[in-house]
């Protein structure tokens, strides 16, 4: 499923909404999650999962081609943990 298919499904269920509004709704949801993580916040969606930010410490890496040591700075990366309900559904244990 891709973004446009998700928008199409929501539009189908909500014939009273303009497609451009459904696009805006879907985009707002994903944008809000990214903005929260960019501020260092968590987004916890019970049953679905939680988005959070993990810190990766600075380290000395290696250029795999030349073997040279390179300093890699501390950085923050997005992380997603699947919620219990969704995890169970993937294994056919709920529904």
């Amino acid at each position, binding site marked *: 499923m891709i973004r446009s298919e*998700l928008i199409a499904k929501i539009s189908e269920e909500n014939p009273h909404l303009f497609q451009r509004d459904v696009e805006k709704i879907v985009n707002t949801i994903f944008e809000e999650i990214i903005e929260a993580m*960019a501020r260092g916040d968590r987004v916890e969606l019970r049953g679905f999962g939680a988005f959070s930010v993990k810190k990766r410490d600075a380290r000395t890496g290696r250029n795999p081609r030349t073997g040279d040591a390179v300093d890699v700075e501390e950085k923050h*990366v997005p992380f997603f943990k699947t919620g219990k309900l*969704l995890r169970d559904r993937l294994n056919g244990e709920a529904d």
Partner: protein
Amino acid sequence: MSEKTLTRMDLSEAVFREVGLSRNESAQLVESVLRHMSDALANGETVKISSFGTFSVREKSSRMGRNPKTGEEVPISPRRVLSFRPSHLMKDRVAAGNAK
């Protein structure tokens, strides 16, 4: 770092602000989005949201595990797990936003 936790309520509040539907309807739409994504994943589909990231279902084969407390060996049955791969855009924005 502020370390706030946002929930469905914050997402529906954003939809309410941006689109101007009622709070109630905004909340229902957030729920529908999550439900459609969950349904697709439960069917084993990959959910690919451009400029956000890709959720995919991976099959794990069975293996022998160990109870860390007792050291006892226990079989772990084959299972499906979800993995999320953030888009480059998300990685860049999260890295930039949290940089010192």
